[in-house]
């Protein structure tokens, strides 16, 4: 082992049925270092981490830890903990029904009895020393997600972990909470802890990390000092291609909308749902891509949910091609040619245990009615067609969807709705939590669909993504539509100003 390195992984390989998730990957972590592990979805980051933490067993390779002359054998999360490797996952892996202190100490230490007084005192001491605003006796579920994450870190710190793995810890935190977390990370770094940081946010990598290791398709691309790797290069290394795509996907678009002022396909007047949004007007033309923008919680999703009938509509009218239609349930919207890809694909979208094929044909089946099933051959035909069209990476059409990566799951749901050949497609945050390559593919696809005459509403938290795809933006603030931007007004500045209500500086 090199001097000062606390963890070395050499030649790690891991295969799953049909996929080689990791091929001969090396990874080195030094003392007091924050090391970013980057890669697209499916690049093998999670697999590498799960190998390191004993969730998966590696097929080949060696793991060495500081202070051990032998190879480390890690077969279970307990083994990893014992060796000083702690992990904080994106989804909180603590028990919400226990107290903060219990979550820090359960599963550790010897003895049969539980000494509450000592445990609470110890816990409070650590929470204080790390400046975490939680009390030991609080029930964990009463803490915010950010605090829960910090409790998980406090647990790791108390276990004298030498290697701390943070797997997408920031995806559900707001800016201040992220700052707090970074403070904690720097503090740990100065104590000599080696931190492996996995994230999708490039800004955050450049804010706290010292080194970057990039993985792609289960292989190691390289390890870089942060100052030697500008962002553009990092992205191109992750994607494995140069990045001219990103800038000019727009140029292919803007074809259909030039055809002048056609009448709107769908039009809503004074639409209001029980989800707490103010009544709003809305229209969309054939072949147009528009978007709802605004801060998180401004009511973007609620608007489209009202159009689709996913929330209970309590007022207003919807017209299709000038004729009034009634949409009170999603099935009404589907019959009128509206398709909706929901925001949270895990809750509203996929059915994890069903196969890719079944997930794809689901909506069409519902529309047809369950008593008129189509043949299996037909379903395979549909599935294969869209797997090819959207380049869905799956072993076969029969693979359960839950074993696909996030981006590919998203594509399956997209395929489900495209199969219905909707006239109007609503995409609510279709690019969240998926890698840059797939993001661009989805954006391109949206523009292609529009150029073929489909109307699309596209919602994203990333403004530049909206600017690239939408020709008209509806701006929302505090659950109210406050403006509409199109043409030359579509700039970051204008959008910011409208969102902020004209108070921001030009």
């Amino acid at each position, binding site marked *: 082992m090199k001097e000062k390195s606390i963890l070395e992984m050499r030649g790690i390989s891991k295969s799953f049925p049909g996929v080689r998730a990791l091929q001969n990957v090396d990874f080195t972590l030094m003392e007091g270092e924050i090391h970013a592990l980057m890669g697209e979805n499916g690049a093998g980051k999670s697999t590498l981490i799960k190998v390191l933490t004993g969730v998966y067993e590696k097929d080949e390779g060696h793991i060495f830890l500081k202070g051990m002359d032998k190879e480390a054998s890690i077969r279970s*999360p*307990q083994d990893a903990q014992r060796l000083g490797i702690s992990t904080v996952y994106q989804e909180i892996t603590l*028990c*919400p*029904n*226990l107290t903060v202190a219990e979550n820090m100490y359960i*599963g550790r230490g010897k*003895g049969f*009895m539980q000494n509450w007084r000592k445990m609470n005192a110890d816990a409070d001491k650590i929470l204080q020393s790390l400046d975490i605003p939680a009390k030991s006796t609080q029930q964990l579920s009463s803490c915010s997600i950010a605090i829960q994450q910090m409790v998980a870190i406090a647990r790791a710190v108390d276990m004298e972990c030498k290697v701390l793995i943070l797997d997408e810890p920031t995806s559900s935190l707001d800016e201040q909470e992220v700052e707090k977390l970074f403070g904690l990370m720097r503090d740990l770094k100065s104590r000599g802890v080696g931190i492996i940081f996995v994230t999708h946010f490039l800004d955050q990598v450049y804010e706290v990390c010292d080194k970057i290791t990039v993985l792609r398709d289960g292989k190691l691309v390289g390890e870089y000092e942060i100052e030697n790797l500008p962002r553009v290069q990092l992205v191109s290394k992750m994607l494995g291609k140069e990045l001219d795509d990103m800038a000019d996907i727009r140029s292919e678009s803007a074809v259909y909308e030039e055809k002048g002022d056609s009448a709107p396909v769908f039009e809503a007047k004074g639409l209001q749902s029980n989800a707490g949004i103010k009544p709003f007007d809305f229209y969309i033309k054939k072949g147009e891509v528009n978007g709802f923008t605004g801060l998180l919680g401004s009511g973007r999703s609620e608007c489209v949910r009202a159009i689709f009938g996913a929330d209970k509509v309590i007022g207003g009218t919807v017209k299709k091609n000038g004729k009034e239609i009634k949409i009170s349930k999603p099935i009404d919207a589907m019959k009128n040619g509206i398709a909706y890809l929901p925001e949270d694909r895990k809750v509203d979208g996929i059915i994890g245990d069903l196969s890719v094929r079944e997930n794809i044909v689901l909506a069409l089946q519902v529309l047809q009615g369950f008593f008129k099933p189509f043949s299996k051959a037909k379903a395979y035909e549909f599935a294969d067609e869209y797997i090819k069209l959207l380049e869905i990476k799956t072993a076969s059409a029969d693979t359960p969807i839950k074993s696909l990566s996030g981006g590919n799951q998203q594509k399956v749901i997209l395929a489900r709705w495209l199969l219905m050949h909707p006239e109007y497609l609503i995409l609510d945050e279709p690019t969240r939590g998926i890698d840059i390559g797939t993001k661009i593919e989805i954006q391109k696809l949206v523009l292609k669909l529009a150029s073929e005459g489909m109307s699309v509403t596209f919602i994203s938290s990333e403004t530049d993504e909206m600017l690239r795809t939408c020709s008209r933006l509806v701006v929302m603030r505090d659950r109210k539509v406050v403006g509409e931007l199109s043409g030359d007004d579509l700039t970051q500045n204008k959008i910011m100003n409208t969102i902020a209500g004209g108070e921001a500086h030009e």
Partner: protein
Amino acid sequence: MKNKKTLSDSNLLLTITIVIFFVMYACAVLFLKGGFLRPQAFLNILNTNAALIILACGMSLVMITGGIDISLGGQMALISMCCAVYLDYQGGNIFVSILIALAIGLAFGAVIGFLVAFLDIQPFIVTLAGMFFARGMTTIVHTAPFNVANEKFTALKATRIIVPGLGSVNRKGIYVDAYIEIGVVVALIVVVLMFILLKWTKLGRAFYAVGGNKQSALMLGINVKKTKFLAHLLCGLLAGIGGYVLFLNRGSGAVTNGSGMEMDAIASSIIGGTLLTGGVGNIIGTFFGVLSLSTIQNIVSSAGLGEAWWTGITIAGMLCLFLVIQSVVMSRKKK
């Protein structure tokens, strides 16, 4: 500062249970004077329900880890039948009969625990099979119900422990001592031990962790499979103890012994604040759950509504009330 901490959810549910029990009992004393005023009335609730208390403790334990065991009633029948047959036909040593009861319970617990924990089969299915198996085996052991005639056993069954100071004067003007049966002592010891286990031991806390979030518990370094196995094993042990206590109370072997008791145990646990989803529960709550359940039964029968369906309907209503309270508490937490 510590005194000011707000009630946690499980404590809140527990408080509600206890308050409702006392209010109910007070109402019974006020409006249905007759029996309820005498301390013996209360002690009789304990006497008849000692076995249920023990069983409900086991059920709560399993429910806290997120499981369920519906074979408990069947186990009661099998245990009492085996002990009865042993005592009357095989010579019959009391001590050995107790060992038989414990062995049957532990065997059920071990097999169910193994299937649930290590083979990851749904506890409902496993214990459903266990229920059919136990009832079937009972019939094989002996079909007709019979009262145990073994003298040592009947002596033990008749043993009464006098509770000083709680006696009362009966209609003939004679002072009658208040008493409890041996089973009650056993049940109270079980309650205390289970309370200590759940609150003050690492194993107990691991039960809660596993029930709260299995995946997280694993990541926190808890051996989830072992923990679940132990919960079922302990439940089996308690079933053995409870089975013997029931046997001692009834004094007979019968296929119908303990029928529906698993449902009473589940109902008591739920009334006591244990969540079916796991992770939340309290033995003291379960204890009061049993008391509430049987007090309702007593009230219904003393009010002259002798028919069984009245009891059923009242209990159904009470369960609904508790489930509503629980879901209100839980949704309040989310906000």
